[in-house]
């Protein structure tokens, strides 16, 4: 009697397609994966312990390292949480600049997702095209903030620098250059029959499971649930721009499958470019920084603020006892729950599907390991 023996494969922390130091212990029978046990913690730097020993402004550059593909979004969530705790009113111009920077960073982060999903299914070229666009965004952000990856641009009460002159035209010119590129991506990869067959109907996540497992952001919207914090709980003048919230439509096969999650990012890039254009055209004059004392003493109290990061709802719970250093900072990483749901979604798939589904969830490890 031929008895097939179970194989325990270690899709270890060092693997070409685990998007960082994630370790998946697979119980497989040949190609067929029975059970997955994700192990995280390889990138744990105890940011929450560091936060308790640093003053409020000093912790801002550390939040860059939370989700390094969308550093400005993480700066923004932290600074806005502290502003809500202290009740600081950010001037309108600073809010607009923050929206522009965050949306640029969102496009850069979604470009990486587009490139790596292509590479996970075997196509190398889309990644290079995505990096070509991302380089232009990096140049723009380098002129604005001074850095190319860990921007450290947003301060408590406003932003560090104003727009350099000529930056506005460069940014608008980038938007016009970028829009036809999205159609090119769709021709090259999205509607390619092999790609659609590889991602369609695979790794289906229902809306109930998504909410139950705390999945947020594009992965939640891919299940057909229209929930975007920028739209439903507007913050930092997002309600002044009109943009749609793309939702999973099941065009690749089933509703909530890997293709929906992928297409959602492509559509969101288009929406973000709309927001940037509107914000740039209606940029008000005024200062860029509220009156904030140099040595920040935050009054007693606690706050939780979660914003719509490219990967989901990243939130900060800050509890302060009135000193210059916070008593407790809890960082809710979006990828923490996105990895947790892998346990449920990756049951009974082929190894190749496992890689494609992992790519479509667009997880990032520093945000989940903190």
């Amino acid at each position: 009697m031929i008895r097939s023996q179970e194989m325990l494969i270690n899709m270890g922390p060092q693997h070409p397609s685990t998007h960082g130091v994630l370790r998946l212990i697979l119980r497989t029978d040949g190609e067929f994966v029975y059970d997955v046990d994700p192990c995280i913690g390889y990138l744990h730097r105890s940011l929450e312990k560091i936060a308790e020993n640093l003053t409020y402004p000093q912790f801002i550059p550390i939040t860059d390292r939370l989700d390094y593909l969308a550093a400005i979004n993480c700066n923004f969530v932290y600074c806005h949480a502290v502003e809500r705790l202290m009740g600081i009113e950010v001037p309108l111009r600073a809010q607009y600049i923050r929206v522009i920077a965050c949306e640029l960073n969102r496009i850069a982060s979604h470009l990486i997702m587009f490139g790596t999903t292509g590479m996970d299914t075997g196509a190398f070229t889309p990644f290079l095209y995505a990096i070509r666009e991302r380089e232009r965004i990096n140049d723009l952000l380098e002129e604005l903030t001074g850095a190319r990856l860990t921007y450290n641009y947003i301060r408590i009460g406003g932003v560090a620098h104003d727009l350099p002159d000529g930056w506005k035209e460069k940014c608008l010119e980038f938007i016009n250059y970028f829009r036809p590129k999205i159609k090119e991506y769709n021709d090259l990869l999205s509607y390619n029959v092999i790609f659609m067959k590889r991602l369609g109907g695979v790794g289906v996540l229902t809306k109930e499971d998504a909410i139950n497992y705390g999945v947020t952001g594009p992965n939640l919207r891919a299940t057909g649930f229209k929930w975007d914090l920028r739209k439903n709980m507007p913050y930092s003048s997002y309600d002044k721009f009109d943009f749609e919230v793309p939702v999973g439509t099941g065009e690749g096969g089933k509703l909530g499958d890997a293709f929906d999650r992928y297409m959602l990012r492509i559509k969101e890039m288009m929406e973000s470019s709309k927001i940037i254009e509107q914000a740039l055209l209606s940029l008000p004059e005024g200062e860029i920084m509220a009156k904030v004392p140099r040595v920040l003493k935050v009054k007693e109290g606690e706050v939780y603020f979660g914003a719509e990061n490219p990967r989901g709802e990243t939130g900060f719970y800050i509890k302060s006892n009135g000193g210059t250093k916070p008593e407790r900072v809890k960082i809710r990483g979006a990828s923490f729950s996105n990895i947790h749901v892998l346990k449920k979604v990756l049951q009974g798939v082929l190894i190749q599907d496992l890689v494609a589904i992992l790519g479509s969830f667009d997880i990032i490890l520093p945000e989940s390991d903190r």
Partner: protein
Amino acid sequence: MKAIKEIGWAIKTLVIGLLVTVKYWFKPGSEITVQYPDERLTPAPRFRGILFNDVERCTGCGICKMTCPIECIEVESYGKGKARRPIHYAIKIDQCMFCGLCVESCPEGCLIHTDRYEGSVYDLKDLYYQFVTEEQKKRFMELADKGIPVKEETK
């Protein structure tokens, strides 16, 4: 019939995909890579490169030391009040994360970012940037004893 239509759609998408790549294959000069050692990209004016402190204008106040999250700046000052001067100023550049908080907090504006980003060295000790030379140290101590404030001297 459905199978024929599906094969037709499949071939159409495959061909469209090929057309996209062929466009870049035969488009001359579409390469965007910069041949690094020969050609160099000039960083933006606001680029946060390796730090430099113009010790002549520095008053040794130590604010940058306090704002640095990683505590990689060492300052020792000599003299009191307006005539205070740094006799030892060092930055452990291998620990520095170029966040720029110190440059923003420097009241004199003497601590600046250069646009140099190539910081590789052959010996780890070279990563310990010292800014005050022996000769400057002696001169600063004399000036501080005579009580000459920093501003007049550099005017």
